[in-house]
Structures are given as structure tokens and as C-alpha cells.
């Protein structure tokens, strides 16, 4: 197992996305969970682009683009779903 700098960056970004998974699990409101999800989508997209450059597989870039689009659309859909309720009445 040889470590170059790109692999070290991949490992550090994976640890970071695990840390932001804590906010998704424990967040008091649902908007906190959405913030954690937004950060996880960004970091996983960065991991995919780095692995596309590192392993010389350009197909991972298409996967990264589709994953970014799906994260954006899912955040819009979840906020539209949460629209009707009120906390303080």
C-alpha cells in the first residue's frame, strides 16, 4: 500500500464527512440535518473527483456530476416537503 498525497487527502476528507454525519444524526431540527447532508454531498463529490485524477478513471467525473445534481435536487425536494408545518404557533 503506497501512500501519495492524493490518497492522504481522500482519507482526510472521508474522516471529515464522517464527522459531519454526527450533525445529521443528532441535529435538533431537520434543517440541521439538511446542513450536514449538504456538506457531505460536497465532500463526497470532491472525493470522487480526486479519485478520478488519482486512479486515471475519467468515468468517475460523470458520477461526481450526477451525484452533485442529485444532492441539489434532493435538498430542494426536502425543503418543499417541510414547507407546510409550523413550530411556534
Amino acid at each position, binding site marked *: 500500500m503506497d501512500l501519495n498525497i492524493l490518497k492522504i487527502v481522500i482519507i482526510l476528507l472521508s474522516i471529515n464527512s464522517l464527522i459531519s454525519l454526527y450533525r445529521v444524526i443528532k441535529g435538533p431540527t431537520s434543517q440541521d440535518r439538511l446542513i450536514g447532508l449538504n*456538506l457531505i454531498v460536497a*465532500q463526497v463529490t470532491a472525493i470522487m473527483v480526486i479519485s478520478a485524477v488519482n486512479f486515471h478513471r475519467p468515468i468517475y467525473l460523470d458520477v461526481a*456530476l450526477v451525484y452533485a445534481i442529485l444532492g441539489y435536487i434532493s435538498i430542494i425536494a426536502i425543503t418543499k416537503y417541510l414547507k407546510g408545518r409550523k413550530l411556534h404557533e
Partner: protein
Amino acid sequence: MKFIAYFFLGMGVFFASFGNIGILRFPDVYTRLQASSKCGITSIISIFIGLIILEGLSPTTIRIIIITIFFLITSPVSSHIIGRSAYKEGILPWRKEKTKGK
């Protein structure tokens, strides 16, 4: 040329770690949203700039530039949507304990 790319990659990891510390430590939805959006977009853009410098001019670079432009458009929009949803739902902003009662 490689050292500039490694510098940008290290800066991306640095900003991602500080965004996560902000996510864990801040007390409110709005402050967490500020830390998340700012540090997230800065880390992603600097990692992509480092990869573009490392890769040189190739078809991979053009696709990375497309993903970068997509992130620059959609990340502020999604942060704004989350904040607007929290505001419409009636979540109050956090204040210090002293000024809470007055």
C-alpha cells in the same frame, strides 16, 4: 508547479476541517449554515483548483471546470433555500442568555 497544487489541496482539507468544527460547535441553525456554506464552497473550489493545476490541459480538466461552475451556481442557492425554510418554519435566532429575558 506541483508544490502549488499540493498547497491548494492542503488548503482545501484545512477549510473542510474548520467547517466541520463550526458545524459541531455553533449553537444555532443560522450560524451553522454560515459555517457550512462558506467553508464548504471554499474547500471544494480550492481542491478543484489544485487538481486542475496538477492535471494540466486535458479533457479531465474541462470536466472539472464544468463541475466547479455547477458548484459555484448551486451551493449558495441550496444554502439560501435551507435558511429560508428555517425562517419560514419559525425557528428563532440564538441569543446570549443575558439579553434573552428583556
